Structure formats: C-alpha cells, structure tokens
C-alpha cells in the first residue's frame, strides 16, 4: 500500500489530535504545524512507525515573519521516506523574545550544522545542541543577519555609493 498524504495526516491526527494544525498540501507536499514543545515527539513518531518511516532529514531551516507577533521565527523541517519516496514538511513557530526549540541532533546527525546555521542567521536557540555557536559568519558578530530588519550591505563600506547602486 503506498503512502498517501491522507494516510499520514490520519495517523498524525490519531496520535496528536488537536495539537497539530494548518494541514496544507502546497504542490503535493503535506505540510503542517506543531507546537514548539512537541517537535521531537512528532519527529520520533514519524521515525519509528513502521508504516511512516520518515528516517531522513532533508533540510532544516528557519524563516522570519516579523508581522506575526508572538510567532515570528519559524523552524521548518523537511523529512523524507526513502522507500515510499514521500516528502513531509513540519513547521514550528517560536516567538523572537524566547526562541527556544529542542534540538534534533539525537535523532538525526545531519541536524547539527543545520541548526547552527539557523542559529547563526536567525538566533533560534536549540536546547541541548552539543555545540551551538556561529558557523558561517564571524564569531564576533553581534546580530543575526538574516532577520528582516537588517540590511544586506555592510553599512560601514566607503567605496560604494548607495545612490549610484540604486539602493
């Protein structure tokens, strides 16, 4: 029996009930939201179940929605099932004042650097991460550059004239 989005949704709702919200299927990929405290439980369930077997973390990233007060930072996990070739997207929203999310490194080793990258760019703090420090930017950087309030260019540069460059 091949794994359909409806079946996955049915199993998830059976197990977690009202906690999981906003089930959508943009472009055929099942996507849903879970509360921040449940992210590991949901991923463990998806990992362990014989029929679901989402044992590969394709991608872990973060997004900043400054307009959603109280849920500004989203951590997005893309999971994958090799046998049935099905993808899944899980979203966790946390407020920017207390951006704490449980780390997925015990379950997936590949989450290690991806969580460091999300911390580096957005400031999402992963509780329990073995080595949460900046990975791509310089260690001395004091702000989280990918957040929407910060500009792209280095404001201290002198040789480029913003007017001529059309900023």
């Amino acid at each position, binding site marked *: 029996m091949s794994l359909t989005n409806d079946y996955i949704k049915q199993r998830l709702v059976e197990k977690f009930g009202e906690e999981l919200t906003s089930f959508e299927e*943009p472009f055929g990929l099942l996507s849903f939201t879970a509360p921040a405290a449940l992210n590991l439980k949901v991923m463990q369930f998806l990992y362990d179940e014989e029929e679901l077997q989402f044992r590969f973390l*394709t*991608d872990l990233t973060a997004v*900043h929605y400054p307009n959603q007060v109280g849920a500004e930072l989203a951590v997005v996990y*893309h999971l994958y099932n090799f046998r049935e070739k099905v993808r899944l997207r899980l979203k966790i929203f946390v407020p920017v004042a207390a951006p704490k999310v449980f780390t997925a490194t015990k379950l997936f*080793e*590949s989450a290690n*650097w991806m969580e460091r990258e999300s911390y580096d760019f957005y400031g999402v703090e992963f509780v329990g991460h073995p080595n949460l420090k900046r990975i*791509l930017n310089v260690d001395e950087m004091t702000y989280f550059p990918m957040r929407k309030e910060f500009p792209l260019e280095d404001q201290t540069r002198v040789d480029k004239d913003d007017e001529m460059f059309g900023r």
Partner: protein
Amino acid sequence: MLEQPHISLPQGSIEKQTTTLNLGPTHPATHGVFQNILEMDGERLVNAESTVGYIHRAFEKIAERRPYYQITPLTDRLNYCSAPINNMGWHLTVEKLLGVQTPKRVDYLRVIIMELARITDHLICNGVVGVDTGAFTGFLYLMQFRELAYEIYEEVCGSRLTTNIGRIGGFERNFTPAAFQKIEKFLAGFPKALKEFETLMTRNRIFVERTTGVGPISAERAMNYGFTGPNLRAAGVDYDVRVAHPYSSYEDFEFSIPVGSTGDCYDRYLVRNAEMWQSLSIIRQAMDKLKSLPDDVYHADVPAYYLPEKQDVYTKMEALIYHFKIIMGESDILPGELYNAVEGANGELGFYLISDGGRSPYRLHFRRPCFIYYQAYPELVKGAMLSDAIICLSSLNLIAGELDA
C-alpha cells in the same frame, strides 16, 4: 578584524598528549577554503574539528533582494564546477511555482547540458583524487575535455564557467549547429580519454591501496548524516533524485544508478567513474531523441515570464507590456511555498522557496549537499593516518561555494 588569527587547542588535548595540527584554510590539499583542526596521536587522527564560513557570501540574503530571473547568476556560484545544474534546478523550481510546462525539446536540451555538467564535475573530482595521491597526469588528460565542455557552454550561453544558462521557461537562444557539432565531438573523444584515465588509475596498485578502506561509512550512518549523491550511493543506498522524483523528462531515458558497498574512497571514485559513463549514454540518447523533434522550439510559450522577441517588443503592444512587466518585476507571481530538488553533482540540491507575491522571494533557502555531508568528516577519518585524511577530504568532493553559500 585584522589581528592575528588564533587556533584554540581542542578539549583535553594536553592531558591526552595529542598534537594539534592545523589543516588551515589555505592549504594545497583542501580544494576550497575550510579549516580542519586535527588532533593527532602520532600519525593517527583522534579527532577533527572543521570550521567553515571562510567564503560565506550571504546568498540567501541577496536572493531576498533580487527578482527571480536575477537569482540565476547567484545559483551559478553555489557548485561552480557544475554551474548549469544549479541554474536548471532554479529554473525548474520557479517553473513549478508558476505552473509553467516546458516543451519536450527544452527538457531534452536541459538534460544534455545537465549531464555534461555532471561529467565535468566528476572528472574534476576524480582527477583531484588522483592529484592528491600523486598522480597528476590523469588530471591533465581529463582537463582537456573540460575545455571542450567549456567551448560547448560558450556556444550556448557565452560564458565558460559561471554559465547562467537558460531562462525561466527554456533557453535564451536556440542551440546553434556548431553547438551540436561540438557535443558530437565530445561524445566521440571523451570515451577514449576516460578509458585512458581508467587504465591509469582504476587497477593501479598504488591507487587502490591508497584508497581502499579509507574513510568508509555504513549506509545507516550515511543516511543519518544526511548524505546524498555519489557519496551515499557509494555507501550502498540507491537514491537518485532523477529516478525517485523525475524532472525535466528524465523518465524518458534509460540509465542505471551505480552503487558501491563500503562507502570508502575507492568506492566513491568508482561510483563517480561509472556515473560518467551513464551520463555519456544519457547524452547520446538525448541527441538521438532530438532528431525527431522540430528544431526551432527552445522555450515555453509563456510571454508573462519569458521575454518576448525584441522585434515584437518594438512593434506589438502586448509584447511591450509583457517586456515591461517582466523587467520591472511586476509579473504576477503567485504566493506559495515549495521545495524542489534536483540531482546535483554532489547530491540532492534543494531549493526551498517561499513567495509572497512580490518581485523577489520572501525566503529562499538552498539545501546544499556539501554542507550537510561534511559534518561526517570527523567520523570518517577517526583513526586514519594523515595522508588518508587528505584523500578522504578530496574524495568527498567538497566545493567551498556550496559549503558556505
């Protein structure tokens, strides 16, 4: 910013009496800029700690500033050894978002270019593994064919390395007969060169002894570490995005996926070699299939997203309006969220795109295969000797642009 860079000693290295060796960001053997601080017990490695980010160019932030068609040159510079694959991957993502269907001829031409890029990337990787074991000749023989591939790219798009090939909806101009002649020349000449390279390396006793058993990884650990691409296939898992989620008419082609068993450097070399033969066969199949299609179709008929012909822009009103809307970024992009992946030369190159209907993406994230599998390096080289660690590093095919983005 300008004071001396420092290395901190790894935890407990003084008590354990290990030596710290800095395989620094500038090193002839690290092809790209990443730093490894190796903790060594004599000649054997105990631990390796990697630092990346020495070429972080903030692609994801730049992408939030640029309209969709201006992001293509940015994607070139991710995996710059096989830039066309990144370009095509981006175009396929945007086409999926917009619901654009490309004609078969465009798909087949894209397949030819992508497989050519895959061959050139694998030949650099295998050549460089040879150079690191001391065999410089093989690399020089293969670079001649990379020059021929550069000539093909020049015929199609004008540029050698950072190609910016194609547009959303197809190609910017039709392939000239000269391009097809050069592709035929490549197909005629490359098999001989690849055979020569194989006779130099594959059964070469020194090479085999230097690479077998070096940096092995089991399939379960590889999947846990997020490996994809030739490194995962060398470990025994036959996952290939071209077969699992076919794009650009790959389902019309017949090819096999070479799979290794132990995941060590020799298996990775063999898998890449075999993939080059498979790519040659795919290009040949595509050239045959192209003969039966009308040869003046090179883009999809979507005037809303693909620039109309210049003579139409000067004479017809609708073409002028479309031209204006596309260039000024006023085209109707629907809001949406999607994840699309292609089989890059190093693995699954994914694009996670969130669009809010504006001229640039709200968020664009590149799922870069190198970044994800490089985390496994300490586990791969535990207990190996220093020279093995270098070979392992080069056989993983780490491209710094893709690592840092």
